[in-house]
């Protein structure tokens, strides 16, 4: 009886917990998730000089972000992420209250309100031809009491009103092949000079009346030597340029509209020739800088075309633009590297030898070189001028230097993550916690006090007696007090390291508990060097994951990069320890890297074998050890791979052939041969997406029991490839073709034999296609031109050759083929089921949850166009959904068919936050089967834990252990009391 009632109780409890609730309560925010905001590498910074905005700096970045930062702490006041195509060309502050931005190649001009970042106006500028775009906010230039902004873009000069963005006048420069270099405002008059080059050897100068756009003067002069790249503005009527060989300095003056050239060969200034020079663009009056190889020279213009070298240094040097301080005086900042320190010097433009400020600051070597310097002044307490500089480092971080110290720093390299992988934390060792025991009695008492206080607070909270301050204190205790940011492995596998490779070539290790940076390392192999001119980081792979040696060996990751954008340039490998962040070694390869294939084999030290395919279709085995080659020889004939040639429309399958037959004997190099090919007709199909299953995905069961006690066997193959092609015409933007001209064809291909297992055409549909492949299903997202809506389709693939294994007796007697090996060479008997649904959003990324054993049901994680991540149950994308499911089907969990997928507001895993500029979502299984870790990255980072079927295998964090304990104690007490009472009663009975 007792058992039965207990069972009923349990059942009832279980039923009550079945409601899938994804949302969380207010006080749970931040317990398992963290969100970090970044802006990216700063391109330009404008300090605000007005009183109210003095604490702020406005920056534009290479991630197309415009942001206003707090100068005291480096926090973001406001921020706008423009689209990936909306590249910012220039920013400035106008009227003391607007931030003006020019973006999209000079076609969009916007004004933002400085205090709160609201957009005030936006205007679109057009012009006859493509050109460099320049923004100039002139001081004291007014047209009919209206401040103006001058914009040169698309071969046209526009004067735009500051107050409403209206174009006041415009002047075309279409007739000439003008390459504009500078737009210069004359300090004393309403004149504007436009200088540039035409036909590579012609210098052009236009003088324009800024009040009405009238062309006052046009002069041009030819220089036979041609011009090279940038120019440096040394006064409002003089610029310095280099000839095309980079060996002659040209001082071009256009005073009063008269152009005069002064040529001075660089060899006249310095004795030894050091190769071609480049001008470092700056705008300091009277001084410019050139760089020849590693040597930087500062040259002063003496007037009448005389030049004088004032300093020559072989330290890495960066220089800021000029900052006008008092009447006619300009200051500029100079930063030089010297070992582990940087020297900051602030000088007056006309006085090279005197320093306004000289400080040296210790700099972390992992930040690399200083790339950009922005100077700002302030008035000290003693009424003298003080200077602070904002510097952008090689790793894209942003630092503020003031009074010889780093006031704050921002790790903005994390805004441009290329690839992410995870690593386990060290196992907790016994010896580790020794240091912690040495607390004295006082500290113990203090801890005890805190402990008691905390418990009092918690008790208050439970009894709903807490005041708002108390609640805040409880919340902060919950956030801090939990063990989530410990540096050791936990039982549930929630604590891990996220290893992220950024565009700057820096590797970061982030703790999943609270997102703090455990270590960061600027990869030496990704540093610019003689051998490797433009290193580009490509991917991260897990190189060594010790399980057997977890106590004494550290895991490491492989960073694959290459030396330039072309495909046949040599590659670089580096190996980094994930506990310490040390670079264990790096290899500059003789061959290129087109494809990296992690093989499913490890050697005795648990290093994973990797096969690298180069541009000549040779395969190279790493690590280069005899042991690796032994293992590899064993599996030689079982290694197949494929390559997708997007631009060519060909998919090929490859296999290894023999050792390389090159002139140099290399036993780790192998020839390959082509096994199969699929050629898409170029006139009707173009590859736009190809997706495979994650190689480490775990599938729990190969069968699926459907409603009528029937079994379907999933076709689970690691070698399935999903490919989507569209009509070449329809590869552009949505709406550029009619539905009749566009189609989308999707394929499921076996990558060992090149067999097309499934092929289906969606007429009237077009890309972009986002797809995710998991187990035996693929979900893809595309646009349906006929329905004018986005659609998501699902294809599930089932194995028919095993379908007759339904007889129990067969299974009992072992007469089934479930354990027989599967070969790709067998004729596959598959059936597919598919269904399409409408979906409201367009996508930026799509992923699927993955758990340790694959038992938990799956959720799709959809990165929406609004930069949020939406969790959608896979059950909604079941091809077997029907309009009226039978009772049995309902029990199985089939949802009645609808034409569109629901978007439930509570199922946004990012809650109300946004992951600006979302680029990718990755999921990592935790050790706890019910839970998966989700990391979304873009300009921002977001991390959370998800339990798609709720945490059925553990108690939740907010489970009240105290209540449980109290209940048990109360029960035990009650048992004792009743026992005593009954004893007494019995005794009394007996004494009667």
């Amino acid at each position: 009886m007792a058992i039965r009632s207990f069972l009923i109780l349990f059942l009832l409890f279980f039923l009550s917990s079945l409601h899938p609730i994804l949302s969380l309560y207010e006080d749970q925010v931040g317990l398992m998730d963290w969100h970090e905001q970044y802006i990216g590498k700063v391109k330009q910074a404008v300090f605000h000089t007005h009183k109210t905005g003095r604490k702020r700096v406005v920056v534009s970045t290479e991630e197309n972000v415009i942001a206003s930062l707090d100068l005291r702490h480096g926090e973001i006041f406001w921020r706008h992420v423009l689209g990936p195509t909306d590249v910012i060309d220039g920013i400035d502050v106008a009227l003391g209250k607007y931030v003006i931005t020019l973006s999209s190649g000079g076609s969009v001009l916007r004004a933002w309100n400085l205090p709160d970042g609201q957009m005030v106006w936006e205007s679109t500028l057009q012009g006859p031809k493509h050109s460099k775009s320049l923004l100039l906010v002139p001081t004291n230039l007014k047209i009919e009491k209206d401040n103006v902004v001058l914009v040169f873009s698309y071969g046209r000069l526009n004067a735009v009103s500051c107050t409403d963005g209206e174009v006041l006048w415009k002047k075309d420069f279409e007739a000439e092949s003008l390459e504009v270099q500078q737009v210069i405002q004359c300090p004393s008059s309403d004149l504007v000079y436009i200088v540039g080059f035409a036909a590579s050897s012609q210098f052009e100068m236009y003088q324009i009346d800024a009040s009405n756009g009238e062309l006052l003067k046009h002069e041009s002069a030819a220089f036979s030597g041609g011009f090279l790249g940038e120019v440096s503005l040394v006064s409002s009527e003089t610029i310095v340029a280099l000839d095309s060989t980079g060996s002659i300095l040209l001082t071009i003056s256009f005073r009063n509209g008269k152009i005069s050239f002064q040529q001075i060969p660089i060899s006249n200034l310095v004795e030894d020739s050091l190769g071609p020079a480049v001008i470092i663009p700056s705008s300091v009056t009277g001084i410019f800088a050139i760089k020849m190889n590693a040597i930087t020279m500062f040259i002063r213009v003496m007037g009448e075309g005389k030049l004088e070298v004032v300093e020559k240094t072989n330290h890495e040097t960066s220089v800021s633009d000029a900052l006008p301080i008092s009447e006619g005086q300009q200051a500029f900042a100079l930063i030089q590297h010297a070992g582990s320190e940087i020297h900051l010097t602030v000088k007056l433009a006309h006085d090279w030898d005197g320093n306004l400020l000289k400080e040296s600051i210790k700099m972390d070597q992992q930040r690399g070189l200083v790339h950009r310097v922005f100077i700002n002044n302030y008035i000290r307490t003693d009424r003298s001028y003080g200077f602070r500089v904002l510097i952008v480092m090689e790793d894209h971080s942003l630092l503020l230097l003031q009074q010889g110290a780093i006031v704050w720093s921002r790790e903005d390299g994390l805004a441009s993550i290329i690839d992410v992988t995870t690593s386990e934390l060290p196992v907790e060792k016994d010896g580790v916690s020794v240091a912690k025991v040495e607390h004295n009695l006082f500290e113990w008492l203090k801890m005890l006090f805190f402990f008691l206080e905390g418990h009092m607070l918690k008790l208050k909270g439970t009894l709903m007696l807490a005041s708002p301050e108390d609640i805040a204190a409880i919340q902060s205790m919950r956030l801090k007090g939990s063990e989530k940011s410990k540096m050791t492995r936990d039982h549930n596998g929630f604590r891990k390291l996220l290893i992220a490779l950024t565009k700057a070539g820096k590797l970061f290790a982030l703790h999943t508990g609270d997102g703090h940076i455990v270590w960061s390392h600027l990869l030496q192999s990704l540093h610019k060097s003689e051998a490797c001119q433009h290193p580009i980081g490509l991917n991260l792979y897990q190189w060594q994951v010790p399980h057997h040696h977890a106590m004494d060996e550290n895991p490491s990751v492989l960073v694959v990069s290459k030396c330039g954008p072309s495909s046949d340039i040599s590659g670089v490998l580096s190996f980094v320890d994930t506990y310490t962040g040390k670079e264990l070694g790096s290899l500059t390869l003789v061959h290129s890297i087109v494809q990296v294939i992690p093989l499913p084999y490890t050697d005795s030290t648990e290093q994973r074998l990797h096969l690298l395919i180069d541009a000549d279709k040779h395969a190279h085995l790493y690590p280069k050890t005899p042991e690796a080659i032994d293992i590899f020889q064993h599996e030689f004939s079982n290694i197949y791979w494929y390559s997708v040639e997007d631009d060519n429309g060909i998919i090929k399958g490859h296999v290894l052939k023999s050792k390389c037959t090159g002139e140099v004997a290399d036993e780790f190099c192998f020839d390959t041969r082509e096994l199969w090919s699929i050629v898409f007709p170029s006139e009707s199909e173009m590859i736009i997406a190809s997706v495979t299953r994650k190689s480490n995905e775990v599938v729990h069961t190969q069968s699926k029991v459907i409603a009528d006690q029937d079994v379907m066997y999933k076709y689970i193959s690691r070698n399935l490839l999903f490919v989507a092609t569209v009509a070449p015409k329809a590869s552009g933007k949505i709406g550029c073709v009619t539905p009749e001209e566009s189609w989308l064809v999707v394929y499921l291909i076996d990558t060992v034999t090149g067999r097309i297992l499934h092929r289906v055409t969606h007429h009237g549909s077009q890309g972009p296609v986002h797809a995710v492949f998991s187990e035996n299903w693929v979900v893809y997202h595309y646009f349906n031109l006929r329905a004018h809506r986005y659609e998501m389709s699902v294809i599930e693939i089932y194995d028919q050759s095993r379908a007759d294994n339904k007889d129990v007796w067969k299974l009992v007697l072992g007469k089934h083929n479930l354990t027989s090996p599967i070969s790709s060479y067998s004729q596959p008997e598959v059936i597919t089921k598919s269904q399409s649904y409408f979906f409201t959003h367009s996508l930026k990324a799509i992923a699927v949850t993955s758990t340790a054993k694959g038992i938990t049901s799956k959720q799709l994680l959809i990165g929406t166009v609004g930069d949020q991540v939406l969790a959608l149950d896979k059950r909604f994308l079941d091809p077997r959904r029907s309009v009226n499911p039978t009772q049995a089907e309902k029990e199985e969990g089939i949802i009645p068919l609808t034409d569109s997928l629901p978007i439930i507001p509570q199922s946004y895993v990012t809650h109300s936050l946004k992951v600006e500029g979302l680029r990718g979502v990755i999921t990592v299984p935790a050790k706890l089967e019910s839970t998966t870790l989700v990391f979304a990255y873009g300009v921002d980072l977001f991390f959370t834990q998800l339990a798609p079927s709720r945490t059925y295998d553990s108690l939740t964090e907010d489970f009240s252990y105290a209540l449980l304990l109290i209940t048990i104690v109360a029960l035990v007490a009650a048992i004792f009391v009743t026992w005593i009472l009954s004893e007494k009663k019995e005794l009394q009975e007996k004494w009667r």
Partner: protein
Amino acid sequence: MKTIQVIVAFILALSLLLFPSFGFQSDELLVDDEEFGLEGAPQYRSPEPIPTRSPPLTTPTRKRHSDLDSDSKIQFSLDHAFGDSDFSPAGTFSARLKTWSHGGQTLTKLRFSRNSFTDEEKEKFKNLLKSDDFYRIRLPSNVLSPPGRDFIISSVKARCLPREGLDEHFVIHMEGVNVLAVNYGSPGSCSYPRNLKLPTKWSFSSHTVLKNSEQAPRAPIFAEEILGGESGEGEVVQPPERSFWAKYWMYLIPLGLIVMNAITQAMNMPEEQATGQVPAQGQPSAGAVQRGPTSAVRRR
């Protein structure tokens, strides 16, 4: 109605006549949807292609449309290679090229004639079998202007082919007159420990299938009222009484227990009262009865 019956009868008769003429060394296996050039003809839009599908014997239909569509015969060759050797001709595919009135072109009636192995080729094939190497074939990617952009290559482990003779199975994926891919292999299974087995007969039995792309199912479109009903139904998943239980079980069970307890109490009460009242009335006698034996024992 009559005409249809007549046509069906005609089709049947014609098919009976046509079948014997197919019995060559190569089998023809025409896949049903090859008659409908869905790919090459994007303007051909049939929302329901299934009812119009018919077995491969569609000669009459074609004859009816012969004024619109024209046929022509084409041939393209199959090349093969043993391991890494160069490709050499191995057979010829012949087919009818059907040009639709709207400009699309499709292949129908694919036939294949395989050249039998020469002695040299037999030796090469035996070597392949011994070394468990690949037997490779290739087709042009465009049947009208071979080889088109590139050759379509497919390979199979040679040990998969021998059964009685040499069994092979081609699935040719077409897109108008372009060959996308060819799936080549044995018709049955070929699981991993592949044993060396020489064929008894050196003749190929070939099966060929032509495949064109299928249409994807459309997303279901509901009328508004159905949609409303559907979503309403979708939300109320559980019957109300169950959710009542699910909500209030923690109150109901103690309540039930209390009630049960109360009932047992109530049932015990009268008894106890009855038993309790009796001794109350005759207390001394009962006490004497009870004490009697114990005292007797003690005394002993």
